């Protein structure tokens, strides 16, 4: 079989097998899988509110997926999208709350977004610097940085910035809020889907051009595929380690802006809910390709929101199992696919 067919077939097979395993688990939990899937399908794609929810979740997933995928082009495994997301979210909320209320909307949103991206990028760059300077494995570094990010945001929230008797910070100024599709155009009624989804598609496209069409991407992929040859070719592999981590972290920060500026309007404890880890699965399913990522994030978006809607029939815990198993199956199949190639 040629490698092109494999590239399509492997993700498809992994999804189908995940579906089969999920059906089995749902049946074991005493429900009719067909009924559950039908309900999920209706709740996600059947209503404009549900579709908006999917779009909103997909947007964050595309961005955390990019956070994993871009460093992956240099063969770096960024497990730290969760921590970068947390830091970005906190930075966005703090900036949004502190800006003068009179600042024009475009400027306020840009400033908040920029601070979220900077926070995410810096957090990821820490792992990059440790790698380049001391040879610390980036997997370990990013995992540890996740814990540290959790600690920092948790501490700052609880001890300094939380509004008394709540677990969230003050609301951001009205001008820092990214308008939802509903408020801007009336589409996707009441859903949290906001204009950052459009920006996200543009960003994915830009990154695709950067990686596969630019000289920068040519060097970057070479440094990932064959680092020693890159050295001989006069390519600065360390620089690419740093920039790819930086871009990845910035993407996670952008994902945080979607949640904070577009939906929650403040930082709340536990608001990311492990989305950063789902980003790993999103990136793997898409083969770390910025455009396929859109599709794979859409799938995981459906799964995530669909799972919530069938809560009345299937306990949340069971759905957690299903989601994690899907991720595991995806990873296993992509490893298998690689071996077959």
């Amino acid at each position: 079989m040629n490698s092109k067919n494999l590239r399509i077939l492997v993700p498809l097979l992994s999804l189908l097998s995940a579906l089969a395993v999920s059906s089995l688990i749902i049946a074991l939990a005493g429900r009719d899988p067909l009924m559950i899937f039908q309900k999920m399908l209706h709740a996600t794609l059947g209503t404009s509110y549900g579709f908006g929810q999917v779009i909103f979740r997909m947007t964050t997933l595309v961005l955390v997926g990019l956070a994993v995928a871009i460093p992956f082009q240099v063969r770096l495994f960024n497990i730290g999208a969760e921590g970068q997301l947390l830091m970005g979210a906190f930075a966005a909320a703090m900036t949004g709350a502190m800006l003068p209320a009179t600042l024009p909307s475009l400027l306020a949103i840009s400033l908040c977004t920029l601070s979220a991206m900077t926070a995410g990028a810096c957090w990821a760059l820490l792992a990059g610097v440790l790698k380049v300077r001391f040879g610390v494995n980036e997997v370990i570094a990013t995992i540890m940085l996740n814990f540290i990010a959790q600690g920092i945001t948790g501490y700052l929230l609880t001890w300094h910035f939380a509004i008394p008797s709540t677990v969230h910070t003050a609301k951001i100024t009205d001008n820092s809020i990214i308008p939802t599709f509903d408020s801007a155009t009336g589409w996707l009624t009441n859903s949290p889907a906001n204009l950052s989804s459009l920006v996200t598609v543009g960003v994915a496209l830009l990154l695709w051009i950067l990686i596969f069409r630019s000289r920068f991407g040519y060097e970057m992929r070479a440094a990932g595929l064959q680092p020693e040859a890159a050295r001989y070719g006069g390519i600065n592999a360390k620089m690419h380690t740093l920039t790819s981590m930086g871009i990845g972290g910035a993407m996670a920060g952008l994902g945080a802006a979607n949640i904070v500026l577009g939906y929650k309007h403040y930082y709340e404890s536990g608001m990311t809910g492990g989305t950063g880890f789902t980003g790993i699965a999103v990136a793997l399913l898409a083969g770390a390709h910025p455009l396929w990522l859109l599709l794979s994030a859409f799938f995981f978006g459906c799964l995530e929101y669909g799972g919530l809607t069938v809560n009345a029939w299937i306990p949340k815990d069971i759905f957690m199992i299903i989601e994690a198993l899907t991720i595991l199956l995806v990873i296993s199949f992509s490893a298998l696919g690689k071996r077959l190639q």
Partner: protein
Amino acid sequence: MGIAVRLSGVSKTFGSFAANSNISLSIEEGTIHALVGENGAGKSTLTKIIYGMHQPTSGEVVIQGKAVRFASPRDAIEAGIGMVHQHFMLVPELSVAENIILGHEHTWLFGSLPLKYAKALILKNSEAYGLAVNPDALVASLSIGEQQRVEILKLLFRKASIMIFDEPTAVLTPSETERLFATLRSLRDKGKTVILITHKLDEVLAVADTVSVMRKGEIVGTVPASSVTKPELARMMVGRSVLLRVINPPASPGETILNINRLRFCTPQSEERLRGLTLHIRAGEIYGIAGVEGNGQNELLQTLWGLAPEGSVISGEATLKGQSIIGKKPAKIALMGVSHTPENRLRHAVILEYTIAENLLFGRHREAAFHKGIGFNSRTIQRFTAEMISDFDIRCTSPERQPLRALSGGNQQKVVLARELNRPGISLLILAQPARGVDIGAIETIHKKIIDARNNGMAILLVSSELEEIIALSTRIGCLYKGSIRHEFSQEEVALKREAEHEFEKEIGLHIT
């Protein structure tokens, strides 16, 4: 004497590609049977069938009179077949004896190892076959030649009677090669069957009893080694007459391009690898460095391409047209007009996953001529690629889509040379092992291009472990020994001595060991 291995009508196909088609071959017991052919001719597929790593698509394999169908090398080992791979299968952290009994411990999981018995057997075998090696030494501490001896001892320990050697001399020095050949002969004299896979014709003629030549997956002939000559074998392999030695017209060198003066190189482990190396290369000449690997070649190349490991101490001079090279980065050195084809092509010169066109650009992607916007100018690149492919006779189907991995070693090397020889404005070309792992047919093209480059006034530094190549190409030859040039042959000497190649090889040999 019986027939050790008989293949009748053996074919092996991978998808639509026939790696071996309808091969019939008898290998007599107690002989050295060489299997020669260019890369991709099907030698390794055939040996993998005999060794049980591949199963034939059709046909029959008979080992010592019994029809067999091996499911894995394990079965082949049971049947008395052993293989010395090109890349050794040894555990560096274990001792020689431990490596040899690995997988054949014949003991209970927690029982003690039969090391005493193994050591006795190892000593007996090493004496009988000239395989001196200390059974208690750690494999990591052994030289390449010694490691190969351990591999052979491993086969003897397993009582293999049919031994397959895959390109065994590729990693050996001339004297180690001689020694290996003596071992092969004594193995044969004791009744073992040796199957030797190689593409070096001199070796075949020196050691083999029978030669089978493969081309495009078929056996084109099996002849006694004593009845053929080198040009005849080459013609059988390639399918046309090949020029084995490139025509090397007299050079007329110009001004000095590279000047190396009392160069010293200390590794971060403070081992002194270059000790006052002095040489100069003029425009329009090829300076060949002859020497056994590990005498400072790597360090010299690292210095000249700005890749010395961090912590190395370099002193002395290395200047290109008066400008110092030492301490500069590869991209900067390339800009000064230096081009480099590294010894380890796969690891250092190409990106296997990239297409042929992308590889023709690798390292030259900073040249403005190829640029357009933030990306590349596909039309310029297309034109450049087509030009290089026809100029260097690179055999491929679609350069814009085919990954480099799909090409044979020879064609990969042509891609590297095409790229490096055509860098705009270069004055110095550094070639390390330009013909390593390359077919005879391709060597012919490559050597011609190197001479052409010299005639166009380029200064060329040639580092090669093949004396034949050094003698055929060089204008002057420097013999590198323990980090300095121990002897230099002048242009007149080289031109004169080239006529009596074997004598010359021996003379150089004296200066490098």
